[in-house]
C-alpha cells in the first residue's frame, strides 16, 4: 500500500471529520448546558441540507452564502423549540426527554419525506468536482472549503463562550443551575439561547455537508447516531472534544476502510465508542 494512498485517505478523513465535528459540536453544546440529549440532531442537519438545496435550486445561491440565513433561521427555530417544547421537560426523567425528541425526529424525517419525496437531492456548484493537487495528494476543493467553514464557526462559537457576557452567563447556567438562578439569571432564556446556538452549528454543518453528500430523509437518523459517537468519544459537553472526536472518527473510519473492509468501517467507530465509554466514559477531553 503506497504512501500517497494512505496520505490521500487521511487528509480526506481529517477534512470530513471537521464537518462532522461541527455537527457534533451543536449536540455537545446543547447537552453541556441544557443537559438534554438532542435525539433529533441529525434530522435537523438534514433539514438544513434540504434548505440549502432548495435555496440553490430557486436562487442559484452557493451553499456557503446560504449558510448565514439558514443559520439565522435555525437559531430562531432552536430558540422556539427549547422555549415551547423542551423547557417544560427539563425536570422530567431522561427517557421522557428522549421520547419527546424522538417524536420530534419522527415528525421531521417524515415531513421531509412528504415534502421532498424519497429522491436524493444535491447542489451542483462549479468547483464541486475540482481538486487541488499538492505533490501526489489530491485535495477535494469542496471538502476543503467545508472543513474551513467548520473550523471558522467552531472558533467563533468558542470565542463567544469565552469572552462575551452572554457566553459567560450560559456557562454559569451550565456549571451551577441553582447558583445561576440565585444570582438572578433567567436560566430558561439562556437554555433557549444555547439550543439556538446548537442549531446554528447544525445549520452551517448541513450547508457545508450538502456539497459533499446527497441528501435524503433517512440520512437524519444516521447523522444523529454519528453525532453521538463523535460526542461521546470526544467528551459530551466539551467543545474541543467534539472537533477532536469528529476528526478521530473521520480518520479512523478512513483507515479502517483502507486496511480492513470498507463495509465494516462504521463497526470500527462503534467499537471505538465502546472502548472510550468503558475506559474514559467522560470522553477524551470531557470533564467528569
Amino acid at each position, binding site marked *: 500500500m503506497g504512501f500517497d494512498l494512505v496520505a490521500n485517505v487521511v487528509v480526506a*478523513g481529517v477534512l470530513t471529520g471537521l464537518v462532522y465535528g461541527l455537527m457534533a459540536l451543536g449536540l455537545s453544546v446543547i447537552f453541556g448546558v441544557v443537559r438534554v440529549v438532542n435525539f433529533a440532531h441529525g434530522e435537523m442537519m438534514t433539514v438544513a441540507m434540504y434548505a440549502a438545496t432548495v435555496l440553490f435550486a430557486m436562487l442559484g445561491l452557493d451553499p456557503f452564502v446560504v449558510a448565514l440565513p439558514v443559520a439565522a433561521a435555525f437559531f430562531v427555530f432552536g430558540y422556539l423549540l427549547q422555549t415551547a417544547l423542551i423547557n417544560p421537560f427539563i425536570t422530567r426523567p431522561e427517557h421522557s426527554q428522549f421520547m419527546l425528541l424522538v417524536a420530534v425526529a419522527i415528525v421531521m424525517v417524515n415531513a421531509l419525506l412528504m415534502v421532498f419525496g424519497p429522491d*436524493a437531492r444535491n447542489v451542483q456548484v462549479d468547483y464541486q468536482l475540482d481538486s487541488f493537487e499538492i505533490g501526489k495528494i489530491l485535495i477535494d476543493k469542496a471538502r476543503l472549503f467545508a472543513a474551513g467553514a467548520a473550523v471558522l464557526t467552531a472558533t467563533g462559537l468558542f470565542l463567544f463562550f469565552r469572552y462575551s457576557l452572554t457566553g459567560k452567563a450560559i456557562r454559569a447556567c451550565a456549571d451551577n443551575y441553582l447558583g445561576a438562578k440565585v444570582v438572578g439569571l433567567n436560566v430558561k432564556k439562556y437554555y433557549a439561547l444555547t439550543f439556538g446556538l446548537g442549531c446554528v452549528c447544525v445549520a452551517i454543518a448541513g450547508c457545508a455537508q450538502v456539497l459533499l453528500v446527497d441528501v435524503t430523509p433517512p440520512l437524519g437518523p444516521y447523522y444523529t447516531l454519528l453525532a453521538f459517537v463523535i460526542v461521546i468519544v470526544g467528551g459530551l459537553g466539551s467543545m474541543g472534544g467534539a472537533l477532536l472526536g469528529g476528526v478521530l472518527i473521520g480518520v479512523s473510519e478512513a483507515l479502517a476502510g483502507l486496511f480492513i473492509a470498507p463495509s465494516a468501517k462504521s463497526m470500527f467507530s462503534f467499537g471505538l465508542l465502546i472502548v472510550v465509554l468503558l475506559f474514559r466514559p467522560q470522553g477524551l477531553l470531557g470533564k467528569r
Partner: protein
Amino acid sequence: MKRRQFNQALAASVASLGFPSVVKAQSQKLKVGIILPRSGYLGFIGQSCQKGADLAPGVIKQMLGVDLELMNADFESNVDTARTRAERLIQEGANVLVGPFDSGAASAIAQVAEQRGVPFVINIAAAPLITEQGYKFVFRNFQTAGDIVRNGLALIGDLFQATNTVPRTAVFMHVNDTFGQAMAKGIGAFMPRLTQLPFKIVDTISYDPAAKDLTVEVSKAKAANADFLLLVCRLNDAIILRREMVKQRWNPMGIVSPGSPGMYEEQYFKTLGKLSEHSISNVPWYNPKAKLTGVVEKAFLKQNPKDKLVFHGLNAGFTFEACLIAADAFKRARTTDPKTLADAIRQTNITEKMMLGGPIKFNEKGQVEGIGSACVQNLNLLPTVVLPTSAATAKPVFPVPGYKKT
C-alpha cells in the same frame, strides 16, 4: 397440458350447469394487489415500479379485454409492514399479489401468499432462494442473481468483442447488501468458468449500502490500477461513486455493471448530468423494438407526459409484465378463484412480451427461465440498448472518452 385441459373442461362443464359465479367471472374484475416500497429508502424505485402498474389496466383491457382493478399498498421499505400489508390486501379481496422489488420483502410476502393460498407474482427480486422453497403460489418473472451475473458477464465478453478491446484487469466493487452479496457470490462462481473473458479481477472492494462517502473505497480502487471498473451498485452509491471518481481523477476504460440497478435510473442522469454518460449496465431490459413496448410507451407517456419510459425501463417493465401474467391467467381461468388462478399462471405461455428473452413460461418452481439481458449504455443522457445487436439502437462506446492509458 393435462391439467389445463382438465381445467378448461371443468370450467366449461360447470358453466353449462349454469353455475352463476363462473358465468359472472368474465364480466368481473381481477383485483390485483400491488405492493411496493413507495416510501422509505427504496421509495424512489418503488414509485418507478408503480408507474408500470398504473398503466397496466388500460393497456391490458385493450390487449386482452380483461378488467383489472389495482389495490395499491406501500410497505414503506419495511419487511414487517410488507407482511401485514399483504395480509390486508388479501383480506380486502385481492385475487393476486404483485410486487415488491425487494428480496427481503418478497420472501415475507411469499410466506403470506403461500399460507393464504393466493398467487403472488414477483416483479423484481433476485435472491435465488425465493423460488427454491417449494412454494406453490409464488411466481417470479425475473432473473435470479445467478442468471443476472451469467448473462451480465457474457455481455461483457460481447462488449469487448464488439469494440475490439482486450482489458486485462478489473477492480470489482460491490455494495454489501442482500443483493450485492448474492451477485458477488455469482461472480465468484462464474468468472473461472467463462474462459473467453480476457480479464482478471485484481481487487474486490465491498462497501456499505448506506455509505454517504466513498472516498476511501475509490482511493483504494484507483490504487489497484485496473483497466476497468466492474460495479454492482444501487442508486445513491452509484452517484456518489461516479462523482468521487472525477474528484480523484480516475479514468478507467469504463464502468461496467454485470447487472445491478443504479446507473440507468432517472436519478442518475438528473444528478450527474453529463457525468452519467457512457456508464454501462448489463441488465434485464425491455426490447425497444418489440411491438408491446410501443404500446406500453404510448400509455406511459399519456400518464406521465413529462417523463420517459426509458428511465423506468426495468422497474416499470417488469411490474407491467407481472400484471400481464396475472391478467392472462385470469382470462384463461375465467375465475378469480385463487387456486385455479395459480394453476392457470403455471400454464402461462406469453409470447407477445415487452422484456427481452424467450416466452414467459414458469418452470415447476414457479421461475421463468430464459429472460434476456441487454447491454445498456448511457448515451446522450439516455439509457440506450447497445447489445445484443438484434435489439440495439446504437453502437457501444468502449473505452469511454476521457480515458487515458497511464
